[in-house]
């Protein structure tokens, strides 16, 4: 079974703090993704990576950066957290580029006060 884990289920941070969200997958997948989910807006892609040290912007990359130093780990970074980044963050992975099944982690509910 594919397993995708995220470092925290719930996180509370203050405005202006630097925030790291970590995601790890154990199936040697090449592709990894970060989404955010907001009521009424659904799931939106922030960034994705199809290889170590590679990254591409998704639909809403503003205010975020990512890091992929190892194949199994994909980090989402909020350089200076703001209240409008309060959201549910979901990480996913898939085998490779192309039409492969995506598998999701349990999510991190981030609140920025």
């Amino acid at each position, binding site marked *: 079974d594919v397993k995708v884990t995220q470092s925290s289920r719930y996180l509370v941070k203050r405005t202006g703090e630097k925030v790291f969200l970590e995601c790890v997958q154990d199936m040697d997948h090449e592709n990894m993704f970060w989404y955010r989910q907001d009521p*009424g807006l*659904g*799931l939106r892609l922030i960034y994705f990576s*199809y290889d170590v040290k590679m990254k591409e912007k998704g639909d809403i990359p503003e205010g975020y950066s990512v890091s992929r130093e190892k194949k199994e780990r994909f980090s989402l970074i909020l350089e200076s957290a703001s209240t409008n980044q309060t959201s549910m963050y979901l990480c996913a992975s898939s085998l490779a580029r192309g039409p*492969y099944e*995506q598998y*999701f*982690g349990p*999510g991190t509910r981030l609140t920025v006060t």
Partner: protein
Amino acid sequence: GIQVEQSPPDLILQEGANSTLRCNFSDSVNNLQWFHQNPWGQLINLFYIPSGTKQNGRLSATTVATERYSLLYISSSQTTDSGVYFCAAAYGGSQGNLIFGKGTKLSVKP
């Protein structure tokens, strides 16, 4: 990019009833997935079904790619089926990136 639309947005059922959830997409797809989001927020994979029909217990799904829709069938619904069901699709130019519908919120009453 493609548009993905789900219907109905909300559905209330009595335990034991059957239901059909629909997903329409605006262009040809090479990936179509159905997910169930549990009350804790995790997306559980139900089906990977870019075309054809699959069954898994009380759940089944059919995608008619030429007519650009997919259906998720839930038979003999249980209270544990409650939650939000998402359809997500990818097209050839998207490098496998999924576009999600807004979901169908299902409530199964005992």
